[in-house]
């Protein structure tokens, strides 16, 4: 703890707490949440975060459309979600209060910047009366703190103009919450000093605001007690707090180092994937080339060109970009060259909800190309898991000479969690195994190079980047003759090549781990998911088990092909529940592939599932089995119970 003063107030220990910082987009709530998170991570809590910000860069100040929030869940034990319901809401203005009240459980604490609750702001948030005065918040514990006025007051004699000083009020809020939850303040003070070293006045204002917030908590009569959340018992090791996008970028660099293939990223800026480009562009000392292309097509095209030349070609995008890249993916499938496509999913269709999460691109990834064009798909389940999954995608791409799609999403991309740094020697080997010489004898007895002679085991063709004498060859998007790779319009050959390409991808099932089931003996219900629902499903399963029921959980990393044993696994259960943030995509695949009566449980509200809803959905299946009733009948016989419906 800090060495400021001894705390005269009582102190209580909590196991976990969920805090939501909310304010106007211009109020710096993301920064505030991020700093609180970093401090808590260094303190040793387990945590999960959920930044929730509007699509508009700057919606009109004070309006509901402009509210930006950051939710963080800190705990003294292992947790998997940013929490269903905040215990504390920090609301910097009336709009922030209004926009977030619905998810606040009764009894929660609300800390408001009372200075912002004046007529104009109330009107902008469509409040007819002041909620602080009209009794509408009687179910909550409301703390009214004059954040703006204290901040301007403490900055007065520092030479900071009141207008500028006001902008430091988020640091006041950070200071106050840091006191309330007994966070060490040195980390933040050090960070402010470094970050604003070039702007001494801003630095001074932020420091003063931060300290004022901290002392306000201590001295004001408002708070009866401060709280502590002890460090979580995490596996020993070195940890960092990481977002999905950073983990993805680092995974690509690691795979590049591991394989010896120089990394080339061809991409076009798009929310929420751009941070991967930003991160990679910083690390040129790894030989990383980042190319901000003129459009999405050029991004993947350049990546494919780099792959043809023997580089690790990667492109990053989100839904709209995935649409545009489809044709080039088809070419990559036909050329059978390694390529990694990272799709950070967001709400669709079309521009949809750029800053909101959704996992609705699975069927696009699976089928969104003309012709028979299969490719492997892998999906990350938590922010840090993006690292491992990206490395796996590179492994598959290189080994099988194929484009691979990695599915991440907005929630993983921006969310954070502590990540135990892996042992780099434990990463899989990735061997480019470039063609070195002729691989075929032609009719004249000449040793020649044929670009489509396949490895018997993997069915992969040789990768022969230019530069090697004797291996000159031409490839293209026209159908190729089996072996020689020459253009062929022969129907029988086309059938053969189509089936070979499919068999190559299907064969990957034997090169990936079996389905990972977190199981208990005798469970009759399996909850199976993919992607970012992992945390919510795990939390729901945990709640169910805590109530004494049995339920198993499986979470798929490989979505095409599925693990070889998946059909058998599914067959072991009476009920298979498939929660997804779409309208039922994995459930369709499972039904089609295994004729299993997969029960779909879905929502598309731009936010992750809540553990509570998950618990209820699982419970319904368990009760259904007990009652001996068949799965939820849905529309047209498809069992499609919806997230909303079960709440």
């Amino acid at each position: 703890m800090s060495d400021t003063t001894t705390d005269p107030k009582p102190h209580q220990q909590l196991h976990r707490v969920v805090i939501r910082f909310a304010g106007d987009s211009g109020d710096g709530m993301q920064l505030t949440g991020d700093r609180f998170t970093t401090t808590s991570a260094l303190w040793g809590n387990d945590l999960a975060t959920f930044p929730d910000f509007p699509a508009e860069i700057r919606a009109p100040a004070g309006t509901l459309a402009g509210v930006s929030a950051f939710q963080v869940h800190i705990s003294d034990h292992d947790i998997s979600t940013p929490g269903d319901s905040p215990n504390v809401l920090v609301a910097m203005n009336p709009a922030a209060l209004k926009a977030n009240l619905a998810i606040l459980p009764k009894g929660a604490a609300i800390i408001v910047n009372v200075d912002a609750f004046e007529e104009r702001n109330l009107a902008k948030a469509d409040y007819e009366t002041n909620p602080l005065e009209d009794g509408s918040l009687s179910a909550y514990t409301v703390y009214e703190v004059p954040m703006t006025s204290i901040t301007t007051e403490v900055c007065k004699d520092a030479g900071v103009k009141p207008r500028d000083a006001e902008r430091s009020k988020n640091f006041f809020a950070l200071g106050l919450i840091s006191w309330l939850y007994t966070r060490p303040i040195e980390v933040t003070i050090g960070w402010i000093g470094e970050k604003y070293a070039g702007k001494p006045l801003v630095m001074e204002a932020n420091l003063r605001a931060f300290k004022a917030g901290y002392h306000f908590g201590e001295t004001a009569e408002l708070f009866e007690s401060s709280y502590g959340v002890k460090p979580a018992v995490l596996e020993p090791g070195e940890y960092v707090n990481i977002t999905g996008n950073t983990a993805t970028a680092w995974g690509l660099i690691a795979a590049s180092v591991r394989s010896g293939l120089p990394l080339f990223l061809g991409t076009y800026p798009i929310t929420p994937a751009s941070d991967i480009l930003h991160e990679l562009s910083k690390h040129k000392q790894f030989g990383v080339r980042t190319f901000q292309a003129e459009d999405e097509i050029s991004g993947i095209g350049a990546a494919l060109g780099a792959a043809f030349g023997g580089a690790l070609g990667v492109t990053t995008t989100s839904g709209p970009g995935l649409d545009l890249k489809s044709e080039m993916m088809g070419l990559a499938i036909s050329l059978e060259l390694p390529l990694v496509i990272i799709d950070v999913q967001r709400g669709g269709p079309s521009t949809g909800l750029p800053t909101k999460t959704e996992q609705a691109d699975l069927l696009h990834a699976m089928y969104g190309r003309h012709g028979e064009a299969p490719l492997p798909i892998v999906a990350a389940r938590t922010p840090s898991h993006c690292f491992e999954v990206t490395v796996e995608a590179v492994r598959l791409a290189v080994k099988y000479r194929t484009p691979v799609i990695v599915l991440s999403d907005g929630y993983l991309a921006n969310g954070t969690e502590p990540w135990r740094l892996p042992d780099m020697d434990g990463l899989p080997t990735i061997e480019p195994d470039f063609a070195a010489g002729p691989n075929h004898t032609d009719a004249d007895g000449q040793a020649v190079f044929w670009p489509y002679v396949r490895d018997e085991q993997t069915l992969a063709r040789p990768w022969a980047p230019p530069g090697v004498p004797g291996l000159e060859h031409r490839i293209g998007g026209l159908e190729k003759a089996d072996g020689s790779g020459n253009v062929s319009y022969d129907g029988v050959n086309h059938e053969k090549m189509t089936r070979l390409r499919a068999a190559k991808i299907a064969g990957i099932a034997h090169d990936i781990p079996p389905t990972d089931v977190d199981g208990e003996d005798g469970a009759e219900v399996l909850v199976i998911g993919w992607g970012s629902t992992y945390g919510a499903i795990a939390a729901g399963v945990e709640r169910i088990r805590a109530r004494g029921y049995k339920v198993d959980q499986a979470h798929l990393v490989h979505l095409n092909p599925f693990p070889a044993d998946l059909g058998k696994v599914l067959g072991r259960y009476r009920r298979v529940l498939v929660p997804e943030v779409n309208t039922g995509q994995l459930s369709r695949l499972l039904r089609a592939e295994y004729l299993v009566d997969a029960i779909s449980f879905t929502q598309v509200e731009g936010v992750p599932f809540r553990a509570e809803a998950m618990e209820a959905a699982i419970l319904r299946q368990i009760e259904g089995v007990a009652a001996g009733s068949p799965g939820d009948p849905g529309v047209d016989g498809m069992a499609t119970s919806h997230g909303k419906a079960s709440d």
Partner: protein
Amino acid sequence: MTDLANAESTEVPVPPTTRKDWSSNQEVRWCPGCGDYSILAAVQMLMPDLGVRRESTVFLSGIGCAARFPYYMNTYGMHSIHGRAPAIATGLATTRPDLDVWVVTGDGDSLSIGGNHLIHALRRNVDITILLFNNQIYGLTKGQYSPTSEVAKVTKSTPFGSLEQPFNPLSLALGAEASFVARTHDMDRKHMMETFRRAHAHRGASFVEIYQNCNVFNDGAFEGITGKDHRVDMLIPLVHGEPIRFGAEGEHGVVLHRDGSVEVVEVADLGELALLVHDEHRENPGLAFQLSRLSRGPHEPTPIGVFRDVERPEYGAQMAQQIEEATDRRGKGDLDALLRSGSSWTVE
């Protein structure tokens, strides 16, 4: 670290080659009489002269008749998708500076569907050589008007005549900041070879428009200027440092007016000293732009040769330099250091 880009041994001299070494074993499948044949011949004959290696040469193309070109070259090659070759070439050329990357394209391929990639590759000055076969028609899809077809052109898709103002490919390239811009035509092998040689020698993006006859869907489109009998009076050879003049006796010439426009004149009227002296290396592309528009179509005296050849930093080299500088500054990338670049903490 696999380093294909530097794997090539530079000590071993390039073995002499012949045209045959550069021809693949694939049967050439253009329509008999197509102008593409003579362009292919010019390229295959030039290659032995360039002193380059087959294994270090790559031909990339998109879709269209011209795009079959890579199949006929005994080099590395890729026949990709419609309009995208400049994008694919950008990735290849920036990661493999050791390679000679050629892009073969047509007026539909790179001025219509692939227009965006073309202008941006030129703007970035990627080290590629672009050969644009301009036949002012869609050949592979059997005769629709193209973005270079003249106004009122009657084709299968424009039975009442095309309404569209065509692109002037050279003006477009110059407007896209191209550092090398030239024009040649399929009836003059020597001129093609010389122009391609210059384009290949240029560091950065080179853009060559080749007037190419599609004898099936747009026969004779350039006959009025490239035909043997017309050439002397209808083609204006641009020669660096020389007054721009043409005609059997050099009786016609080009002058620059005060308002910046250029015009064809009779030398006898204004005197030799009044003629514009061609300067490929002029920083300002304005004059090259004027020359690119001297003729309003292949029915008026039309300049051919190198319009512009200026030095500008090449994209891939600059990218490589940033990597080198970052490595010098921070040392070679270290994964463990990367993972610990934020704040890390240890749990005992």
